[in-house]
């Protein structure tokens, strides 16, 4: 199955490059079969065989679309999974990309990782939704949001004190390498607030206080934008479960505004819109 997709993928990309429909293909490569897949940038038809597709293709490649180094290569084709595809929608909503200037190659995804990544458990976007060309076929699961938030529910069952203690432990390990930020398609600011010091809104030090402030900021800046690709969580060298924070905001947007990031390009973004009837039972 995946091997057929891989073959179709190579053919498609060869065609696109030969017909000069695109200048570069942003896809996955792999040095050794059991090694991790990693992003590759194919500019010549004869190199398309370096492209792979398998369940080790973790990266959300859409993060590259907003990078100057990659933009300078010309018009891209990009390989996306269903969850990555949602990022494209947000990036378009936020005027970061022009879909006419990008060829999106969607690949049917049964899930990544062995064992499967947490995000895949309740995935309802096995098939990319906005791709120009889609390879393979996997039935989309139902939007089982209960399952999606199960991990969060379990966590929230603890007392606030326990939760605080948990995060304190997590944040004590954070070294502020910003892998979570750099790998995220939504963190495309060319100057992050944490890199600004007039004023210093967030302590740059990687101590608990500064790390809490940083992770609150990172997470909240994702409110209504995070598409749940979980790359931040996967790449964290300290193994901090950022997914929980993202989930809490995703669920809030879902619960209160019936909104899921990257599902509907036309939907009014959560931040930047409002309804007069928005809930306010918590306001004195």
């Amino acid at each position, binding site marked *: 199955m995946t091997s057929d997709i891989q073959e179709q993928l190579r053919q498609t990309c060869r065609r696109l490059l030969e017909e000069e429909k695109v200048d570069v293909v942003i896809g996955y490569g792999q040095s050794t079969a059991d090694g991790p897949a990693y992003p590759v940038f194919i500019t010549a038809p004869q190199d398309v065989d370096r492209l792979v597709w398998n369940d080790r293709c973790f990266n959300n490649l859409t993060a590259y679309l907003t990078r100057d180094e990659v933009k300078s290569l010309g018009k891209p084709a990009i390989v996306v999974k269903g969850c990555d595809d949602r990022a494209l929608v947000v990036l378009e909503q936020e005027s970061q990309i022009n879909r006419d200037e990008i060829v999106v190659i969607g690949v049917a995804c049964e899930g990544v990782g062995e064992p499967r990544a947490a995000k895949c458990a309740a995935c309802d976007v096995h098939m990319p939704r906005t791709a120009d060309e889609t390879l393979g076929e996997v039935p989309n699961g139902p939007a089982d949001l209960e399952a999606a938030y199960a991990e*969060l529910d379990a*966590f*929230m069952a603890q007392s*606030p*004190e*326990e*939760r*605080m*203690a*948990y*995060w*304190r432990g997590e944040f*004590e390990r954070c070294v502020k390498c910003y892998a979570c930020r750099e790998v995220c398609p939504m963190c495309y600011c060319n100057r992050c*607030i944490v890199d600004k010091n007039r004023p210093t*809104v*967030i*302590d740059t*030090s990687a*101590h*608990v*206080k*500064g790390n*809490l*402030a940083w992770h*609150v*900021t990172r*997470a*909240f800046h994702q*409110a*209504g934008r995070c598409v749940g690709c979980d790359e931040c969580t996967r790449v964290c060298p300290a193994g901090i479960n950022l997914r*929980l*924070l993202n989930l*809490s*905001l995703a*669920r*809030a*947007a879902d619960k*209160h*505004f019936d909104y899921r990031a990257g599902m509907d390009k036309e939907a009014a973004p*959560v*931040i*930047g*819109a*409002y*309804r*007069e009837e*928005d*809930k*306010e039972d*918590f*306001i*004195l």
Partner: protein
Amino acid sequence: MSETNGFEPKIVAYVCNWCTYLGADLAGTNRLEYPPNVRIIRLPCTGRIDFNLVIKAFEMGADAVLVSGCHPGDCHYTAGNYHARRRWILFRELLDTLGIDMNRIHFAWISAAEGKKFQETITEITEKTRALGPYEAYRQLCEASS
């Protein structure tokens, strides 16, 4: 009223210039007394009040934070408070997930005519916070960071 051996809670209030700040002024004009524990930071509109300010207040040792502005429909800037409310709805869930003590973050609509409500709100929050005691969890976290 408090048994917490002279603990005086530190309360930071981020308020909008046109409703709550004027409400506080009215409380003054009417000589409505309330505890002196609150420090008011005047911003033009709740729309301007960023979540980072709440975090910063706690870092500065606040035991409770109040964010307050115009009632829906009354915003001097027509919609700033609606946008703010949206962010609060989301932000509260994040803080809750982080285990931040939700009894220490308060949101209120207080209009320019509600001097009484301002007095009552500040009094209530101060006493509630006095009862909770200092926000040790956050202070420890800050001390661990020096």
